[in-house]
C-alpha cells in the first residue's frame, strides 16, 4: 500500500512549437480462473510450460472454446466507460509468425469489436477531462520468449507457453492525449479502474497492463495529424511517460531541422532513456486478418449485460462522493482513500467494525500509510497486523478518552509487535491517560505548592500563568493526565473552577 500520492506537478512539455497528439493502446491481462479458449489455469509465476493443453499449445486439431468470464470482464469495462456494447461481434485471426505464438496466429477481434466508444475521465472530481476511447476488444495473449541464452557455441531462445491463451482486453484510446503527463494520468486512472472492476491486478511489472503509445506532432491549432510513430512494450507507467517525452523530443528535433518523421515502430529503453527503431514502415506486418472460422459470432445477451451491470462495483468517483456525503469525510480524505480501491475497502471495513469515519481516515492516511510505505506492505499485509476490528478498537481508545495524541501513536507502534488488544497494550505499557480527578488532585496540589509564585500571578489575573502551571502538571504526570480533566482540576484548586 502506498502513501497518499502528492498531487503531481505538470511535467513540462519540452517543446512549445509543436503540439503532441498521443494515443494509447493498453493490453489488460484478465485475472480469470482459466485461459481465454481452454480450461488451463490462468496463473502468473508457475513453473514454465506447466499450464498447457492441446488448445493453448496450438496442437493440430485443437479448437478454441470461449471463456464467458472474459466476456463479462469486457462488459463491465464497457459499462464503466459508458461505451457501446455490440450485441454481435466477430473474432478474427491476426496472422504472423512468432515462436512464442503457438498457432502463428492470434485470435483477436478486428473490424467488428465487442465494444466501441466511451470515455475515460482523467480529470479531478468536479473538473472532468474525458478522453474518448476508440474501442475495446478481446484477444488471447502469447507465450514468452527468453532470449538468447548461450549454450556452448549455440544461442538458444527458450519458450514458456504458460501465458499463451491468457485473456486480454485491448483498449485503444482515440489520439486525444496532449502530453506525457496526460498519458501518465490516463494509465493511472485506467489501472485504478480495472482494479476496482476486478478484471486484473493491474501490475505492470508482471505484464498485467502493457502499453503501446502512438505519438505524432503538429503545429498548434492544426487540424491534420502529423505522421505517427508507435512505441512498443512500455512496461511501467514511468516508461510510458518518459518514452513519450523522448519521442516528442526526437520528432521535434527532426521537424525543427526541416525533416520529415518516418512512420515506424520504436522500442524504448527506460534505463538508458533511449529509443531504437524496431521496424520501419516497409517491414510493417500484413496481418491478413480474416474472420475466425472456429468461433461463432460473439453474441451478448440481455442476461449477460444484466449480470455485468449487477457485478459493476461502485466506481471511485461515486465512492469518494459517498465518503463525503454519507460518512462526512473532507473531500481530500475521500479522494486519497478512493485512489486505491483496496485502501478504500479497508477503510470501509474499519468503519464497519465501529470506528468513527474521520478517526479511521486519520489512522489510515497517517500511521498506517507511513508504516506500509516503510515496510512495503500491501493492504493485505496491513490487515494481517491490523484487522479492521483491531484498528477500530485503537480509534475507539481516543474517542473514549483513554489515550490521545502521541500516546495513541505509541500504542499503534506497540501493536506492530504485540498481538494484544489496543486497550490492554495501552494499560500494560502505562499509556492510558489518567481521568480520575481524585487520583490527580494530590499532584495538582503538589504542583501548586511548588509553584506558589505563578499561582499567585494567576489569581491576580495573569491568565498566561495558567498555561505554565498546566505544563508543570502534565510533566508531573508523565503526560498521562487527561488534558481536559487536568485543566478543570487546576482551575478548581486555584479557586476558579466549579
Amino acid at each position, binding site marked *: 500500500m502506498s502513501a497518499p500520492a502528492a498531487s503531481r506537478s505538470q511535467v513540462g512539455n519540452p517543446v512549445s512549437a509543436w503540439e503532441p497528439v498521443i494515443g494509447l493502446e493498453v493490453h489488460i491481462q484478465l485475472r480469470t480462473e482459466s485461459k481465454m479458449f481452454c480450461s488451463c489455469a490462468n496463473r502468473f509465476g508457475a513453473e514454465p510450460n506447466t499450464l498447457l493443453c*492441446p488448445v493453448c*499449445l*496450438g*496442437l*493440430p*486439431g*485443437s*479448437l*478454441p*472454446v*470461449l471463456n464467458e468470464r472474459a466476456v463479462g470482464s469486457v462488459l463491465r469495462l464497457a459499462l464503466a466507460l459508458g461505451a457501446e456494447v455490440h450485441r454481435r461481434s466477430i473474432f478474427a*485471426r491476426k*496472422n504472423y*509468425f512468432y*515462436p512464442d505464438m*503457438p*498457432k*502463428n*496466429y492470434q485470435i483477436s477481434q478486428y473490424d467488428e469489436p465487442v465494444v466501441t466508444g466511451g470515455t475515460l475521465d482523467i480529470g479531478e472530481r468536479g473538473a472532468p477531462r474525458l478522453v474518448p476511447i476508440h474501442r475495446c476488444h478481446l484477444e488471447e495473449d502469447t507465450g514468452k520468449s527468453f532470449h538468447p541464452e548461450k549454450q556452448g557455441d549455440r544461442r538458444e531462445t527458450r*519458450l514458456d507457453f504458460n501465458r499463451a491463451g491468457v485473456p486480454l482486453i485491448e483498449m485503444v484510446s482515440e489520439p486525444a492525449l496532449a502530453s506525457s503527463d496526460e498519458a501518465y494520468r490516463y494509465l493511472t486512472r485506467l489501472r485504478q479502474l480495472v482494479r476496482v472492476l476486478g478484471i486484473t491486478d493491474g501490475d505492470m511489472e508482471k505484464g498485467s497492463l502493457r502499453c503501446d503509445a502512438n505519438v505524432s506532432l503538429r503545429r498548434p491549432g492544426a487540424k491534420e495529424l502529423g505522421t505517427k510513430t508507435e512505441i512498443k512494450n512500455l512496461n511501467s507507467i514511468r516508461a510510458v511517460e518518459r518514452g513519450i517525452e523522448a519521442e516528442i523530443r526526437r520528432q521535434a528535433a527532426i521537424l525543427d531541422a526541416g525533416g520529415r518523421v518516418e512512420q515506424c515502430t520504436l522500442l524504448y529503453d527506460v534505463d538508458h532513456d533511449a529509443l531504437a527503431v524496431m521496424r520501419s514502415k516497409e517491414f510493417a506486418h*500484413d496481418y*491478413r*486478418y*480474416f474472420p475466425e*472460422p*472456429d*468461433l*461463432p459470432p460473439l453474441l451478448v445477451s440481455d442476461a449477460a449485460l444484466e449480470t455485468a451491470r449487477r457485478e459493476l462495483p461502485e466506481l471511485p468517483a461515486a465512492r469518494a462522493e459517498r465518503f463525503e456525503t454519507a460518512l462526512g469525510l473532507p473531500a481530500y480524505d475521500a479522494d486519497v482513500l478512493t485512489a486505491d480501491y483496496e485502501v478504500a475497502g479497508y477503510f470501509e471495513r474499519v468503519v464497519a467494525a465501529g470506528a468513527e469515519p474521520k478517526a479511521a481516515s486519520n489512522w489510515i492516511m497517517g500511521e498506517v500509510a507511513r508504516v506500509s510505505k516503510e515496510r512495503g506492505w500491501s493492504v493485505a499485509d496491513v490487515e494481517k497486523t491490523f484487522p479492521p476490528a483491531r484498528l477500530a478498537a485503537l480509534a475507539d481508545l481516543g474517542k473514549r478518552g483513554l489515550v490521545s495524541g502521541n500516546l495513541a501513536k505509541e500504542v499503534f507502534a506497540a501493536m506492530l509487535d504485540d498481538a494484544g488488544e489496543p486497550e490492554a497494550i495501552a494499560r500494560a505499557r502505562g499509556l492510558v491517560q489518567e481521568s480520575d480527578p481524585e487520583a490527580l488532585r494530590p499532584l495538582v496540589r503538589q504542583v501548586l505548592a511548588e509553584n506558589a509564585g505563578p499561582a499567585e500571578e494567576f489569581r491576580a489575573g495573569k491568565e498566561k500563568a495558567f498555561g505554565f502551571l498546566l505544563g508543570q502538571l502534565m510533566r508531573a504526570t508523565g503526560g498521562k493526565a487527561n488534558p481536559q480533566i487536568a485543566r478543570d482540576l487546576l482551575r478548581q484548586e486555584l479557586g476558579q473552577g466549579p
Partner: protein
Amino acid sequence: MTPHWKKSAGAIAREVAAQPGTASAVLEAHLERISAWDPSVHALLARDEQGARAKAKAARGGPLAGVPFVAKDNLCTRGVPTTCGSKILEPYVPPYDATVIARLAAAGAVLVAKANCDEFAMGSSTENSAFGTSRNPYDLTRVPGGSSGGSAVATATGMAAFALGSETGGSVRQPASFTNLVGLKPTYGRLSRYGLVAFGSSLDQIGIFARTVADCALVFAVAAGPDENDMTTRPDGAFSLDGLDLSPGAGKGLTVGVPRNILKEGLDPEVAAAQVAAEEALGRAGVRVKEVHLVPPAACVATYYLIATAEASSNLARFDGVRYGYRASDATDLLALYTKTRGRGFGPEVTRRILLGTFALSAGYYDAYYRLALQARRRIREDLAAALDGVDALLLPTSPTPPFAIGEKAQDPLAMYLSDIFTIGANLAGVPALNVPCSFTGSGLPIGVQLVGAAAAEGTLFRLGAALEGAIGGERRWPELPS
C-alpha cells in the same frame, strides 16, 4: 458361413454383444485382409495391431462393439502417429483423441490403423500423400479418389468394416463413388471437428465410409452430436436411429430434384448413364423425380479454392518446426528455421495452396478475393436452398468421371480441382450429402451418385439412399484380390 470381413458393422456388433469372444476373431479376419490387400493398394499408414487386439479382447457391448475401423490420418489418435500424409508431421504422435474417435471407442469400435490421404487432405486422388499413392482395388492402375482415399480402399476391401474420412470439398463422397461405397458428408457442425487437423475450418467436416446405408447411419448416430470442445457444433446435432426406416420402400412419397442445367456438358457418358439409372431406380422405389435449377458449378470451384486456401494458409502456419513435428536441423536463424522446415516439410500441392491463400488474404487483395468469395458463398448457399425448396433432396453425379488413371491429372492442378465440381456446393453451403453406389463402367469401375439435402436432413438422405440401394439390388461386387 460368411467370413467376418464381409459382415456389416451392425452384424458384427450384434454378434459381439451376444458373444464377446468373437471380437478377437473378427479383428484377426480383418488383419488378414490387411496383410493380403495392403501391399497392393497401400491404403494404410500407421497400424495399431497391439492396441486393436487389446480393444477387441475387451469388447463387450455397445452399438459398435468389436467393429474394426480405420481413421483418416488427419484425425488425432492418442499414442498413434498422425501424419496427415505429410513429412512435416512424420514424427508426430498426438497426446489426445479426436472427439469422434473417442465416441466410437466408447461405443466399442476398434481402431485398427490410420488411413493414407492426400497431404493435409489437399487433393482428389491420394497422389499428394508424402507416403505414396493409394490404389483403387477395382483397378490398381487407377486412383481411389481422395483426399480420403485410404479410408475408402480399406472399407472397400474388407480391411475395415467402416472408416472415417474428412471432407473439405468432396473428399469422402468422391472416393466413395470411386470404390463402390456409401459415403456421408454430414451437415456442418453435426460431427465435432475437435481433433480433426484443420484444412479449411469453415468447410471441414468428418465423414463416414460404409458398405451399406444402414452401417453409415449406425456410425453416424454414434458420432454425431454437440461437443463442448467445438463451438461450431450444432446444439441439435445428435442423430437417433429410432423410427428411421431403411427398408427398400423407405423413399416412397419423397421427391428428388435433378439439376439438369449443370449436367449437360463435361459429363462422362457412363456417368451420365448412371445418373439416368439412378433416377429410374428411385422411380421404381416410389420416389418422384423433378427438374430443378442450380448455379453453374464453376463458380463453386472458384469460391471454394479462395476460401479453403485462405483458411488453410492460416491453419497450417503452426507447422513451423518450433514445437512439434519435423524441424530442419541445419537452420542457423529463425527465418531459416521457418523456411527450411516448411519448404522441406510441405509437398508441392500444400505449398501451392498456402501461397494462394496467403495471397488471397493479403492487404489490397482481400476485398477482391476473400471478401468476394464470402459473398459468393452466401449466394451459393441461397441458390442451393432454393433448389431444395419443394424437393427432399437433389440427385446428381458425385464425380464427372469414373476413377481416373494414376498420374493422369497429377501435373494439372486445375483438371484435378474440376473433379470436385459436383461435390463442392454442399461443402460451401454446409448441407449434408450422401454418395450411394449406383453402377459400374464397362471396364468394371464403380460409379456413385449423390443425394444432397437441406441442413440436418441426414435422415431423409438415409431413407432415399436405402431406397436406391434396394432398387439397384444385387450382391455386393467385391474387388478381386490381385494374384
